[in-house]
């Protein structure tokens, strides 16, 4: 019974988390993009930036709303499904997450209303301040939650008290700045920026395919491709550093990612493809390049690497999942790099707005960031198994005292509701993106004008209307 409840609870957490992660991955990048657009508009007075701002803020409002509601679910799932973990790790992760609420969620929520609806009420300068606060809030939020997550991966600065709880050993600095935190934070925030750049680029490209002269489409495509070209290489470097850090602190996870069951004292190969199996402790049908694995992980062709077999089997994560999710992430990362370089080449030849093949590729790559983010998250989280607090608290010992039917029904309810609600939400987002930005970013006429100030995002439009009506 406990076995069933455990797997159902894990499925539920994975399901709700995978849905949730998509939204912040997008809104972290998008809020910064909006901040840049508004800043450029204020600085240059170029109305194109304002139009793009108005266009993307509506999309942001919908995505952010979905992020909020799916995030509240996460905040309570620790208690509902993982109460043993909550009780034992609460003294450490509780304050970290509460700091996220205090320093980030309130900031975002407090200024979001003004950002969405307040421009006619507070004026340009205060409105820009609100936009900045929302963007900064998303980054602060990422910082705390990644510190929390990293502590579960590379716990530090704690002792275990008589009640079996993890409690601070002294200073909070080693807890907050635990060994994997800086690497994971950089890698994740860059991933969010890249994800957003790919979405913005895909929307721009989609509209360029229909009309390559459209100034709005050109501007967003160009901005997005600059971002992709600059950030994709940085992300690959950040990922490399993150990998080295993981090898130091969680070697089992890296070996699972690489599919290295046997130790390689003379240098490990890079397994490109294969079918790893925990039971057989081997990678079937593997295609590998000799020594390349050591070059990547040790920056030395002959650097020795251990193998999974040197560690107890009950410490292995499910190798096939980690192995494949890692490859999906890296593969997409390389494609992003290729897209960025391609756009640079097209730009150099003044073909950025004319290369239909490039535009098609950019449209195809639109969702790649989301897939890569989820794949990366699967790699790191499944790679942490079978522990919740790495090496110290097993997932099986973290569960709430729940009956399997209770978890099964809640899982079914989540699946039903999430697919319906967020599926429709995604459809609305796509519908909004399929429209071209225009100089008149207005709400559909059914929204009562007298209430326009506080209908979603319409408030932004009001002063522009007034300004354009008057001159």
């Amino acid at each position, binding site marked *: 019974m406990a076995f069933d409840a455990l797997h159902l609870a894990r499925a539920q957490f994975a399901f709700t988390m995978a849905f949730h992660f998509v939204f912040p991955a997008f809104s972290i990048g998008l809020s910064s993009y909006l901040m840049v657009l508004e800043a450029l508009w204020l600085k240059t007075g170029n109305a194109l930036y304002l139009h793009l701002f108005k266009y993307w803020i509506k999309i942001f409002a919908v995505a952010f709303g979905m992020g909020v*509601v799916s995030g509240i679910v996460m905040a309570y799932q620790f*208690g509902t499904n993982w109460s043993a973990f909550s009780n034992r790790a609460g003294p450490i992760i509780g304050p970290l997450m509460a700091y996220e609420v*205090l*320093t980030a969620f309130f*900031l975002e929520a407090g200024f979001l*209303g003004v950002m969405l609806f307040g421009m006619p009420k507070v004026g340009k300068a205060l409105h820009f301040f609100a936009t900045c606060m929302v963007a900064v809030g998303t980054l602060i939020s990422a910082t705390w939650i990644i510190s929390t997550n990293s502590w579960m991966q590379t716990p530090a600065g704690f002792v275990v008290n008589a009640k079996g709880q993890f409690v601070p050993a002294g200073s909070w600095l080693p807890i907050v700045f635990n060994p994997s935190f800086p690497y994971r934070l950089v890698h994740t925030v860059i991933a969010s920026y890249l994800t957003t750049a790919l979405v913005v680029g895909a929307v721009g490209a989609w509209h360029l395919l229909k009309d390559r002269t459209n100034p709005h489409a050109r501007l967003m495509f160009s901005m997005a491709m600059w971002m992709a070209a600059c950030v994709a290489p940085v992300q690959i470097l950040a990922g490399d550093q993150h990998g080295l850090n993981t090898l130091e602190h969680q070697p089992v996870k890296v070996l699972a990612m690489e599919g290295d069951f046997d130790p390689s004292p003379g240098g490990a190969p890079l397994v490109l493809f294969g079918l790893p199996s925990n039971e057989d402790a081997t990678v079937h049908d593997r295609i590998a390049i000799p020594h390349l694995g050591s070059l990547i992980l040790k920056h030395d062709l002959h650097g020795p690497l251990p193998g999974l077999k040197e560690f107890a089997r009950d410490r292995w994560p499910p190798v096939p999942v980690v192995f494949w999710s890692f490859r999906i992430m890296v593969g997409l990362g390389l494609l992003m790099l290729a897209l960025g370089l391609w756009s640079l080449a097209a730009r150099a030849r003044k073909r950025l707005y004319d290369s239909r093949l490039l535009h098609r590729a950019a449209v195809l790559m639109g969702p790649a960031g989301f897939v890569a983010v989820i794949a990366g998250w699967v790699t790191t989280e499944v790679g942490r198994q079978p522990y919740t607090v790495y090496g110290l608290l097993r997932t099986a010992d973290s569960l709430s005292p729940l009956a399997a039917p209770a978890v099964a029904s809640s899982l079914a309810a989540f699946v039903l509701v999430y697919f319906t*609600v967020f599926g429709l939400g995604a459809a609305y987002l796509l519908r909004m993106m399929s429209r071209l930005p225009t100089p008149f970013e207005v709400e559909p006429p059914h929204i009562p004008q007298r209430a326009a*100030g506080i209908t979603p995002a319409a408030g932004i439009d009001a002063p522009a209307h007034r300004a354009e009506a008057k001159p």
Partner: protein
Amino acid sequence: MSSSADLSIVWMLIIAFAILAYVVMDGFDLGIGMLFPTLQVGAERDQAMNAVAPVWDGNETWLVLGGGALLAAFPLAYSIILPATYPLMIAMLLGLVFRGVAFEFRWRDPEHRAYWDAGFSIGSALAALSQGITLGAILQGIKVTNHAYGGAWLDWLSPFTVLTGVSLMLGYALLGSTWLVWKTEGSCQAHARRLALKLGLATLAAMACVSAATPYLHNDYWRRWFSMPNVLYTAQVPLLVIITAAALLWSLRRGAERLPFLMTLALFVLNFIGLGVSLFPYLVPREVTIWDAAAPVSSQRFLLIGIAFILPVIMLYTGWAYWVFRGKVGTEGYH
């Protein structure tokens, strides 16, 4: 008492404040959600939606703070109460999903707006009901074995908890209607005022029932409220409730715009104090006190520093956000 004990009291007060802030702020949001079906499609509904759209996200954040602070300061209580009320928590979260997305979705899909409005109402009602039942479940007691929840997954269901669930729905609806009296005008306001009178009477009746039933749940509650000399203090609570209730009904009849909401707030605060009288110092009645559940001093102190500096700032800019959107919705158009 050690400094740990003192910190636990501070933390209990902070969490109580967060929960109260949540209840009164998201209470009116959820209340308006429940009243939505009684409003006319079109201007009335749009006004009602606009009365909460800029602030709902901030209001809901107090719920996250309440949960987060409970985990940080009293992890044992968090890890007992949430599994004990598992289906309620899930229902509340799903209700809040529907409620939260409706704010944007209803404008994005006019053909299906009726569905999102229905989701807004049902989601709000479900969240309110779950919260009310959870409150009742905590009051009636939770089975604890070995520092963990020891009951079955439907233990929370009883006539008493259903009563508290319905009572909280009524209370939230009262908050929502009096907020609409404050923030709207015309037919929407008149409608809200009529509703507020009925809801006011219904809420008072529900409060009377819950208050009457609570002392019978356990001797301990009876002693706290009615033994000498406690009764000299505790009797002040119902007395103040009667005065506040009279002021509420009078202000509604007299056509006041803000007083009804403020009096409803006062009613909630008094109820909350009453709850404190019944529960203190237990987080899980007769099983887990705030001191049993307390996180180590270093955890409580670390977060307290943040609370001390950041919470005032939060209240400042939250206040500012409310101030920006002050006045009647719909009267200050841009045309």
